[in-house]
């Protein structure tokens, strides 16, 4: 039985992700951890239109029948929970961030909010970049250090105590990436406004 408030948080964040253009119609997924269980979006469900039937409750450490229904990325979500203090995970496909991830080892925001909140977002590469063992190995390790990490060419995974906290990092990252792209189009030298700007690269 899924608590009404829990369902509502999935519905609201799922809808927000879709409306903000951070996922396609059937892309991305969400999960929360409740002790030794997780609740995760059902495979193929639309984030923008989640109903109670679209949420799957399954065990955290061991497979049960829930895995038949759960999102493709279930193994990654599980690994993240087991390796980090996360209580919520958001996986989305922010377009500007994906574009930047193709040519960079890390994304360093240059805008004020991105600098405050994210400092730096590492980019992790995997040959099989959907629900793979390689992702299970690399993403949780990076998320022990950072609250949001990019998977090259695929999307981001972010963690938080709640879904909307994890959503905030996604939203912030995409805004920062759009600003980086816009600044590239303007193609003028930056005027310094952040002290110790270079330090963000070593965050």
């Amino acid at each position: 039985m899924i608590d009404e408030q829990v369902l509502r948080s999935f519905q609201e964040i799922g809808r927000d992700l879709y409306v903000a253009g951070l996922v396609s119609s059937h892309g991305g997924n969400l999960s929360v951890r409740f002790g030794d269980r997780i609740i995760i979006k059902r495979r193929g469900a639309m984030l923008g239109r989640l109903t109670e039937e679209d949420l799957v409750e399954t065990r955290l450490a061991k497979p049960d029948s829930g895995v038949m229904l759960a999102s493709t990325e279930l193994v990654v979500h599980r690994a993240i929970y087991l390796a980090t203090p996360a209580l919520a995970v958001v996986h989305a496909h922010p377009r500007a961030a994906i574009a930047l991830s193709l040519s960079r080892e890390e994304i360093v925001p240059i805008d004020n909010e991105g600098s405050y909140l994210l400092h730096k977002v590492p980019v992790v590469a995997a040959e099989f970049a959907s629900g793979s063992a390689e992702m299970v190995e690399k993403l949780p390790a990076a998320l022990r250090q950072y609250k949001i990490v990019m998977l090259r060419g695929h999307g981001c995974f972010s963690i938080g105590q709640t879904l909307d906290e994890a959503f905030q990092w996604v939203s912030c990252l995409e805004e920062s990436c759009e600003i980086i792209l816009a600044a590239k189009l303007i193609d003028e030298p930056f005027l310094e406004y952040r002290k110790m700007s270079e330090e963000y690269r070593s965050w």
Partner: protein
Amino acid sequence: MNGWMGKVLDVDLTAGETRVVPLDADAARLFIGGRGLGARYLWDLVGPGVDPLSPENALVICTGPLTGTAFQTTSRFSTTTKSPLTGTILDANCGGFWGMRFKRAGFDALIVRGRASHPVSLEITAGGISIDDASHLWGKTVPETAQALGQSTRRSVLCIGPAGENLVRFASAISDCTRALGRGGVGAVMGSKNLKAIAVEGDARVEVADRERLRFVRYEASKHLTASPLTSQGLPQFGTAGVVNVVNAIGALPTRNFQESQFEGAERISGETIAESILVRKSACWSCPIACGRVTRTAHAQGEGPEYETVWALGAACGIDDLEAITEANYLCNDLGLDTISAGATIACAMEMAERRVIDSELRFGRADLLKPLLRDIAHRAGLGDELAEGSRRFAEKREAPQYSMSVKGMEMPAYDPRAMQGQGLLFATSNRGACHMRGNMLGPEVLGLPKLVHRLQAQGKAPMVMLHQDSAAAIDSLIVCKFTNMAVAEEYFARALSAVTGVSFSTGDLIRAGERIWNLERLYNLREGFTRADDTLPRRMLDDPIAAGPSKGWVSRLPEMLDEYYATRGWDVDGVPGREKLAELGIERLLEQIPGVAK
């Protein structure tokens, strides 16, 4: 050893001897410092069944690797002992200047054992250590003692007042005359050892592995402290009492011994009223940019306080809305060395029992005139005060009415109604030192929206959140920094500051994992003392009696369903015993073998 001084001062008061021993580096790596290191030392020093007020109990005072560094709010120190109020492991920490000076005197920890044959004080400076006769100070108040021992801008004094000397089970110890090791009876343990005071001086440099890195982390943390309205406006302008109206508005301010959850006099005791009426200036601990402290003045006196918990305990809990009376009672608690929360809550318990004719007393809710005389009687164990000095649980049990003690494991609940904040209730029930709002406060997610708002009446999913906040709090108490910093600055910054200071790489996950290790160690300590699942509970009133009116009307605590989820989340069995697998994961499985009958 960057961050740590590498030395522990071991004092045996029975023998009158002191010795300096090396810091246990393995323990420091696993348990960081402060509360964690204190718990690790206490595990070995004080075995099961020891009377907390006997010479066999020990007092372990620890700073942390961040103490005395350039990072924000790093003045604090932590004290660990076995509590005379609860019989559990007890840690209490406080700010001011004492912690920074003790560390800069060259030590990470101070262990005090045994009992002196007569009242003594300790003096710790870089130049030497001495145990001095303090017979002339016995009976003196906190300010009198601090003055006699030369408290100054270079010298800090931690001492007890008459309450500690008279073994009041919720006696506090006070540093710099204004900051309390408040809860659980640290003052009584000092009193039982005939230890009146510890004076410290020190200005040694704390070695930091990467000063430039620390400077950048500090700079980034300062942005968040400045940007957060809570740390840059709310706490500086209104102190912690700024949340009185906030908590009251949602029907979570316990009133008249938790019989109600809204107080009609809340506005008159709020942080806003304090700022408009009695505030002289704000005050801050060393290296704190927040400055939540209040220097206040009434018609008769000037002093420090009151904080949120105090205006509640001596105010709403007792049905009192006379701010001057509450404030002067607060000054008196500071002078006598009394925990304001347990003092007020115990008086509230007695007030209800008097109104219900369970005891024969003139006490009644709203009787502000009785506060100060009763507090003096408690500290000096006179009349009814002698019974109240045992704490509300022992008092109510003695009068065969335990249902009127609003306590968990014998420690009085602080200023949040568990029926109106489900996570806070679970937190109170499971806190290792008894009901506590500082071992992971759910005020953030359930009321203030920090980091995000979670429905306060939701039960599902609260257990892992409570666990995360408890583990985070244990880590923060071990670094050791102020938890108000954590209201604006995420654990990520603490991990980076710790890495910069020590030169050892700590991720956010590592820090939280250290907190989990510490929480489990404390749990094992309590299991070794015989505590069980039955002790992880709330007063019957919280479980059986719905709130009668207000925004939280009709709610009781959903503790039973949350507790099962909590144990599962922690990797404990249904009896609340950590499994061997979990402890192995945390690197402390050996300790389980020292608990006969519990090890599985």
